[in-house]
């Protein structure tokens, strides 16, 4: 795997039980890139994401994160690979009974020997990154949906991952909050060199942040387009890609 490639997906087939959603999917994500997975409903975006983060084993093929294969790794080796990634779920998935600071210190407490004071200081810096440093003692239910998404990103960053996977980060957010989240993603990539893999439908966000996108299709069971979003919008001859980027009815 070339040094500048952090994720390599080779000939991946994925699905549930006997149902195959994706066949022979291959692509690479470069370090420091903001990579977006696009597609219509039911095309396998979330399934692909689950394979990338090791929640589902591939039916065939391989997913390598910085050279490590989550599907075949176990024990210490798997933990090592998992520490290189952070995941922000669509709902935020913050632990409702814990404060924002506790949500962040939880993985730090589990995977490091840092003293409590240091863990709290790290939680503060992570929340500062997403402008929530004044909400350390709040429960997730006490903050807005947009703040919860930012807090989820802060938690995903707790162990300084190399890659952040975000599932529908802008879903359900107002345009201003969504734009702020886009700015945060760019800021974290530029300042910390984090690689982002996003699953998104929000065209405005995609144009704002994506370096490269792939578009999945349900019928093709795979990638039907790949490139910069503006290029796909202006140059793609594929009817589905054209409709998607121009918001036209099927």
């Amino acid at each position, binding site marked *: 795997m070339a040094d500048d490639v952090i994720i390599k997906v080779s000939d991946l087939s994925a699905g549930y039980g006997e149902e195959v959603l994706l066949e022979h999917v291959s692509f690479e994500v470069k370090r420091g890139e903001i990579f977006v997975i696009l597609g219509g409903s039911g095309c396998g975006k979330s399934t692909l994401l689950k394979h990338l983060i090791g929640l589902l084993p591939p039916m065939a093929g391989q997913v390598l994160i910085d050279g490590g294969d989550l599907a075949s790794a176990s024990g210490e080796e798997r933990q090592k690979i998992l520490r290189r990634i952070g995941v922000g779920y669509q709902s935020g998935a913050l632990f409702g009974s814990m404060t924002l600071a506790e949500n962040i210190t939880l993985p730090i407490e589990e995977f490091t020997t840092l003293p409590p004071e240091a863990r709290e200081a790290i939680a503060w810096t992570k929340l500062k990154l997403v402008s929530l440093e004044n909400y350390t003692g709040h429960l997730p239910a006490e903050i807005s949906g947009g703040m919860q998404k930012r807090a989820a990103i802060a938690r995903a960053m707790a162990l300084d991952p190399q890659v952040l996977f975000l599932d529908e980060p802008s879903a359900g957010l107002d345009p201003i909050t969504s734009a702020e989240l886009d700015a945060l993603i760019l800021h974290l990539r530029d300042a*910390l060199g984090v690689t982002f893999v996003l699953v998104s439908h929000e065209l405005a966000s995609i144009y704002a942040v994506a370096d490269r996108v792939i578009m999945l299709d349900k019928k093709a069971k795979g990638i039907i387009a790949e490139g910069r979003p503006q290029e796909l919008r202006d140059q793609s001859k594929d009817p589905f890609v054209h409709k998607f980027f121009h918001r036209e009815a099927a």
Partner: protein
Amino acid sequence: MTEVAESLKVESEEGAVRLILSGRLDADAVSGIWDEALGAANGKVTVDASAVEYCDGAGSALLCELRRRAGGEITGLRPEIAKVFELFEGDEEKDENAAKPVDSPMESLGRAGAEFFQDLREQVEFLGEMAVVFLSFRGGAQRLRWNDVWVTFERAGVQALLVVGLISFLTGLIMAFQAAPPLKQFGVDIFVVNLVGLAMLRELGPIMTAIVLAGRSGSAFAAEIGTMKVNEEINALNTMGLDPVRFLVAPRVLAGIMVTPVLIIYADLLGVAGGFLVMLIRGFPPTALWQQLTSAIGVHDVMAGLIKGFAFGALVAGIGCLRGLQTKEGASSVGVSTTSSVVSSIFLIVVVDAIFAVVYYVIDF
């Protein structure tokens, strides 16, 4: 100069402290030097970070704390690390009150009192709402969902038969085992039948059944409705113009009222059977036991238990549903509601039973 660890050296000269950080400031290295570095930074401190090669989140947190606590000047950071460190500019104004203040004991007491009375008020309001709903049932949108009633009746009743039966049978059996030897000393061990019969029919049958119902079904109602509240399904009902009390609570409460007396009769039978088994083992003929039982208990004893059953059924189902509707946000509040439904139900079962005992005594029932 003191070398605390490979990545930290401390220099003191005329009261001025200089910390020299080097190498990789990652979580492992920072774990070893955190206390020493911050301990040395009691007064004015300067931090030489020119030999720091790498700095992760833990390293950044250490530098931030050194700058915040001691106003430490951090010099020599590599440009790429300085760029990351700039993200935390302004941390000197770290808001120590960002964590919510903890209540004083008096505030906690006041809050607990206010919550108690608020809860009492909500229970009374809920009772009123229930009464209105039951009195206003008619066809169409106001109809009772009988299908839900039967489903709940089955879940709370039929599926509880095993546990209610086993507990009641063993209760009767234990009571007879415990009572028989002392009564035998006076030659009146046949009166064990009176004891088991009256205790099961008037007190233990209803109470044990109600407690099992609270643990099995009341908690299930609270968890089910609480999860619906968290998932905004209750809001969806409201916005569809469907009253959650009529839609969710009424069928469960009605099923509770219907099923509890049936379960109580079943518990009474099994409890008495448990007592009979002990007496049979002790050599008493079945006919003698039956005659003793029928002479000791009357229809009014059966009725005394059944009347309690209606009240307990309404109470357990009502409390379970109320706690579900009172659920706040998040998964943990569903747990709180479930626990609260069981605790409240058991407490109120005992209180209501005490009231029944007084009333029965006064009216000589």
